């Protein structure tokens, strides 16, 4: 009766081949979700869009970030901030998806199957990074529509997007770890309470210099600020750079921060996953 034995994967080459095969299957599943749930996709993008409308058209006219008067160049300042914020908030989507897969028993099912157990975590990461690239592209088009422009060269602009995805990639590990940590989807939804200050206490919409000293210091050292400032420089948008080290070396900080985040949260996520069997 058991005639359906899967292709053996005892050799190293076979293992690698089948592991990649498993990753592709999980990524394919995620993309089918995107096709199947365009409304969900729209909602996830809805938040940054609403934020940008709010800040650019409601508060923006009162903001003087460039020292040239309220509202001047605010779109140019806020847009890169919004890109960075969307990447920063993205980990809640990851956490939610992981928590849902866990709650629904999907993770248990794949763990009882002869597939690469890393596929759930790594496949999730690849899928979410690709998803984020699609998000960014849509936001980019919206930004162009409301008048934002990149003043940088083609390669600088492309580099800025790479920096954005680099932050999102690092934060996916945080999302996976948190998604496995929380009890259920409801708790995963509450993670937004962490994401919100993480995304907003930064230079995303307001220069840290305009905040009270202690808050400004937190904002200046926030990884999201490093990314926002770095891409402002690459896009050639106004940046309102303060005196702190991460603001002075934004590009370096925007590259190093995600390395640190990955170094901490990748092992945490993998260990949490392995310990599901405890």
């Amino acid at each position, binding site marked *: 009766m058991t005639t359906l034995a899967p292709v053996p*994967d005892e050799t190293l080459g076979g293992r690698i081949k089948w592991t990649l095969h498993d990753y592709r299957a999980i990524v394919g*599943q995620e993309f*089918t*979700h995107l096709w199947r749930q365009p409304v969900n996709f729209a909602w996830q993008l809805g938040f940054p869009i609403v934020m940008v409308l709010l800040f650019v058209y409601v508060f923006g006219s009162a903001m003087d970030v460039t020292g040239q008067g309220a509202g001047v160049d605010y779109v140019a300042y806020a847009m890169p901030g919004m890109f960075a914020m969307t990447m920063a908030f993205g980990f809640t989507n990851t956490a939610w998806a992981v928590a849902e897969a866990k709650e629904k*028993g999907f993770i248990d*099912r794949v*763990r009882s*199957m002869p597939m690469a157990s890393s596929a759930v975590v790594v496949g999730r990461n690849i899928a979410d990074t690709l998803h984020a690239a699609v998000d960014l592209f849509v936001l980019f088009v919206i930004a162009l529509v409301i008048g934002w422009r990149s003043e940088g060269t083609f390669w600088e602009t492309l580099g800025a997007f790479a920096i954005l995805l680099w932050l999102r990639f690092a934060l996916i590990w945080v999302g996976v770890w948190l998604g496995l940590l929380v009890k259920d989807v409801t708790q995963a939804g509450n993670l937004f309470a962490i994401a919100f200050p993480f995304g907003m206490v930064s230079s995303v919409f307001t220069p840290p210099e305009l905040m009270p000293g202690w808050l400004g210091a937190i904002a200046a050292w926030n990884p999201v600020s490093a990314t926002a400032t770095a891409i402002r420089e690459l896009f050639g948008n106004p940046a309102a750079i303060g005196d702190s080290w991460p603001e002075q070396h934004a590009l370096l900080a925007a590259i190093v921060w995600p390395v640190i985040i990955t170094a901490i949260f990748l092992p945490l996520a993998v260990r949490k996953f392995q310990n599901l069997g405890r």
Partner: protein
Amino acid sequence: MPTTTVEANNLGKRFKDTAALDGFDLAAEAGTVLGLLGPNGAGKTTTVRILTTLLRFDTGTAAVAGFDVGRDARQVRRRIGLTGQQTAVDDLLTARQNLVLFGKLFRLTKSRARERADQLLAQFGLAEAADRQAKGFSGGMKRRLDLAASMILAPQVLFLDEPTTGLDPAGRREVWDAVSGLAADGTTVVLTTHYLDEADRLCDRIAVIDHGRNLVDDTPAGLKRRMGADRLEIVAADPGDLPVLREIVAALAQGETTTDEGASSVSAPVGEPVAALTAAATAVQDKRLTVADIGLRRPTLDEAFLELIGASPNDTATKKKEDRL
């Protein structure tokens, strides 16, 4: 010569300061259906999670399909299917996409995965719904899709954790038919359930577990036999007749006669059930009494079960709460 496909000896598993399993033994022969029965918190799900390589255990040994669950987890995973308590299908995918996805994750080639999906869709009566999203499915359909997904490699051993919880009678019947069919084809099935009629109907053997320990391991018929003799029962039409009816029953009883005032009934265990029933009916007629009902009652598996765990259902619920604390 029957071979043992699932064998666990002296399994122990602690969660913090509660012992979920405390020296539990289990054995299922190839091609049989083993029911794991017990109150909530007894250790049923823990046992299934251990045998399906999802949970590490502290003490004892466990082997599935001839492979050690701890050491050869990969080999075990190739030979088992699992349907957990939740339906672990992807709601956003169609039935076919779900089965193809799981087929790929079971490492079939794309064309083989598609072929197998078609077979399973037909086998589980889902061919017509194949290209609809699973989120629109009824509970029974989802369960069948879930079962189909765990059957992709035609596993030697299939684990089902409360496969019919939350289903309506039609849905339960659909799942029962599917499980019976699989067992008939030679798959060994280990299932947990709260429903004794389910265990009675599907299982070749029933292992009763409570507080992580074996209470009893027997066939459904054997379990019922442990409950003792058939009972003769007369339900009075007029409660005033109860004393007379009690006399009639007591004269035939082989054991204590009990009167249930609430149900207006008298009953007692009897040795020769048919003779006792005839005698009782004659006696009722002779005395020109009218009764609401007269008959023989076989002990149900529910009674056997409650007697075994030595508690009324309410006590069981209390116990469960204590276990959680």
